[in-house]
C-alpha cells in the first residue's frame, strides 16, 4: 500500500527526532573527549566543541603521573571482579532453592526476600551494622551489603522455573544429586540469563560510589568513581600538580584533567558495551515478563 502524505510526514519527523535523541546521547561524551585532548588555553577561550584544538596528551600525562589513578583503576578491577563473582554465586544459591516447587517455606522465604525490596533500614542503620561487623575500611563493606540483588534473584528464579521439568526428572533418574543437577544441567541451560546478570552486577560494582564514600576512609582504597568525583569537586588538584611540575600549570586547566579522568573511567565501559548490549537487553526482557 502506498503511504499517504500524512504517513510520510510522520515517518520523516520520527527519523529526525530519533536522530536528535541518539545524537544527544553521544555528543556530550564526544565533547568531553575533545576537551581532554585539547590545549588548556583553547579550552579556556571556549574554542573546543566536538573536535580537539591544539591536540596534546598533557592532561593524560598529568593524570597518570600526578595522581594515583592507576591505583584507583586497579581497585576498581578488584572490587568488580571479586564482587561480581561473589554476587553471582549467592544469587544462584538463593534463586535455585526458591525456584524448586517442593521446597518447604518457599512462599514465606520469597515474601521475606521481596519485602526487603519494599522496605529498608536506610543509611544510618546500615552503617551501624557494617561498623559492628568490623567491615569499615575493608572491601567487605562494598561486596557484602549488595551481595544479592533481589531483582536479579527474581529474574533468575523465574528463568529456573520456566525450565522443562522433564530434563530434571531424567537427570534425577540417572542418579544425579542436587548439586550436580544444578551445576551440570540447570546452569549450562541458563547461560544467557547468567551472562546478563553477571553484566548487571559488574556494571554496578564498576560504578559503585555511595558505599565507597560511606564505608572507606583510606584514600588508597578508593575506586575510580570516588577519585574522579573528588577531582571534579576539588580545585586543590591543581595545586597538587603545581608542586610536581610548576612549569606545566600554565598550560593546564583542571577542566582538561577532569575530562581526562572522566574518559579513563568510561573507556572500558564504552569499549565493551556494544558487544554485550544484547545480553543486557535480554536480562531486562526476562525481568519484564515477570513484571
Amino acid at each position: 500500500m502506498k503511504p499517504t502524505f500524512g504517513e510520510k510526514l510522520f515517518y520523516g519527523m520520527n527519523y529526525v527526532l530519533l536522530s536528535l535523541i541518539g545524537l544527544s546521547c553521544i555528543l556530550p561524551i564526544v565533547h568531553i573527549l575533545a576537551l581532554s585532548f585539547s590545549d588548556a588555553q583553547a579550552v579556556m577561550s571556549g574554542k573546543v566543541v566536538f573536535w580537539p584544538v591544539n591536540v596534546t596528551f598533557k592532561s593524560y600525562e598529568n593524570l597518570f603521573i600526578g595522581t594515583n589513578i592507576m591505583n584507583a583503576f586497579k581497585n576498581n578491577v578488584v572490587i568488580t571482579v571479586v564482587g561480581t563473582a561473589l554476587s553471582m554465586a549467592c544469587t544462584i544459591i538463593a534463586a535455585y532453592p526458591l525456584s524448586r516447587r517442593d521446597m518447604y517455606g518457599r512462599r514465606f522465604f520469597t515474601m521475606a526476600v521481596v519485602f526487603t525490596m519494599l522496605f529498608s533500614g536506610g543509611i544510618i542503620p546500615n552503617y551501624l551494622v557494617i561498623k559492628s561487623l568490623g567491615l569499615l575500611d575493608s572491601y567487605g563493606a562494598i561486596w557484602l551489603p549488595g551481595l544479592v540483588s533481589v531483582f536479579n534473584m527474581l529474574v533468575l528464579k523465574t528463568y529456573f522455573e520456566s525450565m522443562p521439568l522433564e530434563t530434571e526428572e531424567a537427570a534425577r533418574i540417572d542418579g544425579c544429586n542436587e548439586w550436580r543437577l544444578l551445576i551440570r544441567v540447570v546452569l549450562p541451560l541458563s547461560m544467557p540469563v547468567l551472562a546478563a546478570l553477571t553484566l548487571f552486577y559488574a556494571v554496578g560494582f564498576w560504578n559503585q560510589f555511595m558505599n565507597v564514600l560511606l564505608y572507606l576512609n583510606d584514600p588508597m582504597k578508593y575506586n575510580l568513581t570516588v577519585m574522579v568525583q573528588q577531582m571534579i569537586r576539588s580545585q586543590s588538584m591543581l595545586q597538587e600538580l603545581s608542586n610536581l611540575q610548576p612549569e606545566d600549570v600554565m598550560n593546564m586547566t583542571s577542566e582538561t584533567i577532569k575530562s581526562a579522568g572522566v574518559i579513563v573511567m568510561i573507556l572500558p565501559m564504552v569499549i565493551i558495551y556494544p558487544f554485550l548490549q544484547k545480553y543486557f537487553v535480554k536480562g531486562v526482557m526476562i525481568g519484564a515478563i515477570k513484571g
Partner: protein
Amino acid sequence: MDTAEETVPRRTDWQQERRVDRKRLKQNIPYFIMFVPVIVFFILFKYMPMGGLVIAFKDYNFADGVFGSPWHGIGQFKTLFSNPQTLQIIRNTFVLSVLSLLIGFPFPVMLAIMLNEARRAWFKRLVQTLVYLPHFLSWIIVSGMVVTIFSTQGVINDLFAGWLGEPFAFLYKDGSWLSIFIGSGIWKGMGWGAIIYLAALSSIDPSLYEAASMDGASKWRQIFHITLPGIAPTIVIVFILSVGNVMEVGFDQVYTLQNSAVFEISEVISTYAYKIGLQQLQFSLTAAMGLFESIIGLVLVVMTNTVARRFGQGLW
C-alpha cells in the same frame, strides 16, 4: 508477585502421602544447605538494619550502642516535624522525586513508540545502541559532564554567548538547576526504560494496524487506539514500581549535582543523612528521617497497587 505457586501432588491414600513427604523432606536437605548462607545474608544486611531503626526512638550515642542508648520516645520525630530545616529537606525529597517521576515517566514510553515506528532496522539498532549507553555511566560521570558543559565557562555558555549576553550560571540558579536535575535523569534513564515497553510493543498483533490502516485511521489514531491500549498493562506495572521508589531520589545523583548555592532545594534525606548523620554523628535524628522515608515508600506502593488492582492490573 508469586503467582506460579504449585501444589504438591495429592494422593488420597495417607500412606502414600507420607512416603511422598519423606521423599520431599530428603529432597529439601540440599535446598536448605544452599539456602542457609542466603538466609544469613538477608538477616545480617537487610533485617538487622531494619531492627537498627529502633535508634529512631532513642538518643543514640556511641558509648552505649544501639541497645544501651536511652529511649527517647517520639522525640526525634517531634524535632523532625518542628524544625524548619528538616521540614525543608523532607519537602525537597518529595518535590525532587515526584517531579522526576511525573515529568520523566512519559519519555521512555514515547521513545519506545518512536523506535517501534522506525522501519529501517539498522537505524533502529543504531539509535537503540546510543540511547542505552547513558544507563551504564555512573552518576559521577554524568554529573561531571553536566557540570563541565553547563558551567559558566562551559560549552553551552560559549555557544549561546550571543543570545545570553553574559554567562548564565545554570547550576547556581534554583530553576535551571532543577531543570538540569530532572533533564539529566531523563537523559540517563530514558533509553533503558524504553526496553520494557519495546518488549510489550512487539507482542501487539500487526493485523490490528493493517485493519486500522484499511479503515483509513491516521498514524496518530493508530497510536492512540492500538499502540497505547496494547502496552497499558506494562505502563501500569512500571508506574507502580516507580511509585514504590519515589522516596528514593538517588543519593549519587543529588550528591554529585548539588552545590552550596542550591542547597535550599537540593538537600534531600539521603544526602542529609550522610552529611549530618554520619559526619556530624546525629544518628538518631537521621535514622528517624530514614524510617519516615521508608514508611512513606511502603505506603505509596501498597496504595498504588490497591488502585491498580481495582482496574485488574495489580502486582499482587
